[in-house]
């Protein structure tokens, strides 16, 4: 009993010493002492900006206000319904025939025109956007990069190493996340859509549509990087089964077709 008391008392003293020291040191304003600027330590945002610069140099960015506004009107209800600040997602439209969309560090979301052309319904495009937003919000982007590229390499890349930046960009745009992360992003996207009263079923239809094209070897980014599309369609459908589904459409059928036509004109 005497030994036990000794352990408890000494343990308490040790904890008190630890927290006392911590509390004491907390009174010093180290941020001021070390002249730290927040952005300097922000690898994700630096890396995101360097990667975006690379995209700007290597791809054709569409700066058409009408198209950008239409795209914004499709993404806005998802962001609003899920309390995601609008300015936290940087949405970019890129002219490229590949059926692809991908997320980059620092909340950049790139959508290829090929993807929009391939979506039969606006909800399918919204679902893909929701899926990529989920990757961003759940921190999947940096998780994937730190796993595949390595923490130390990423740190050096944020300084601006050309070949490395291209390699990172390739990893982000043409390779899938872990199956668990993909599933999490799919189901989160479904939640996002349902909260915004958007029908998530076209997402499953789009998956089936992709599954038909799975045989194609190249040039279909979102298809080749997202395998087992049919499985995904099935778990999405079973996830929404029995749940109340809204049917809110941001664009009229005519508006959606016009948007796709304009996208096709840009290509």
């Amino acid at each position, binding site marked *: 009993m005497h030994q036990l008391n000794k352990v408890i008392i000494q343990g308490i003293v040790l904890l008190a010493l630890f927290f006392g020291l911590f509390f004491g040191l907390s009174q010093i304003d180290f*941020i001021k002492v070390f002249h730290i600027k927040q952005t300097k330590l922000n690898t*994700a945002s630096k890396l995101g900006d360097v990667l975006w610069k690379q995209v700007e140099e290597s791809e054709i960015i569409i700066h058409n206000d009408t198209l950008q506004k239409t795209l914004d009107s499709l993404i806005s209800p998802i962001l609003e319904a899920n309390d995601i600040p609008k300015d936290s997602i940087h949405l970019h439209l890129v002219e490229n025939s590949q059926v692809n969309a991908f997320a980059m560090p620092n909340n950049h979301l790139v959508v290829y025109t090929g993807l929009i052309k391939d979506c039969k319904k606006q909800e399918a495009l919204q679902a893909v956007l929701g899926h990529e937003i989920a990757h961003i919000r759940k921190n999947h982007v940096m998780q994937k990069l730190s796993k595949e590229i390595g923490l130390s390499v990423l740190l050096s890349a944020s300084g601006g190493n050309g070949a490395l930046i291209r390699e990172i960009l390739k990893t982000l745009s043409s390779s899938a996340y872990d199956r668990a992360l993909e599933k999490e992003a799919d189901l989160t996207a479904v939640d996002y859509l349902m909260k915004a009263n958007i029908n998530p079923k076209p997402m499953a239809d789009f998956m089936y549509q992709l599954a038909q094209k799975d045989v194609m070897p190249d040039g279909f980014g979102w298809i080749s990087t997202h395998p087992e599309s049919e499985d995904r369609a099935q778990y999405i459908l079973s996830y929404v089964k029995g749940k109340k589904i809204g049917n809110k459409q941001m664009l009229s059928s005519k508006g959606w077709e016009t948007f796709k036509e304009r996208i096709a004109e840009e290509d």
Partner: protein
Amino acid sequence: MIQNLNFPYKPSEHEAEKASNSYLMSLVALVAGLPLPIINLIATFFFFIANRKGTYFVRWHCTQALFSQAGLLCMNSFGFWWTIDIIFYNYPISGSYFAYLFTVILFNITEFISTIYLAVTTRKGKHVELWFFGPLTNLICKPDASAQ
């Protein structure tokens, strides 16, 4: 924080060497595994497993080394993941982070110096108990028949 105490028996030269090695083990692993605090704990743990059926003196000091490493692991791990969150997940860097970092560094230095001291004194066959971890070891590590 460190107490020189009498041990129930006088350890042999061989025992003193083994007991001293348990502290050296965590020192060597500390150098190898600095960014990943789990490595020193694993190294000390395997040394503990290898010697848990050794004589009382060796067992006692292996256990104390293991406990002190486990204590450090908790505070170091928290600091390690906090740093990772700041670097990669946009966590804001704060004064509390530095306060925690320096507290942990101070505790690590204290632990490092005590471990060297323990390694040297146990090598001489003297019995030394650390604050808190010593009495904790006494609670768990009991003398066996051969030590009496």
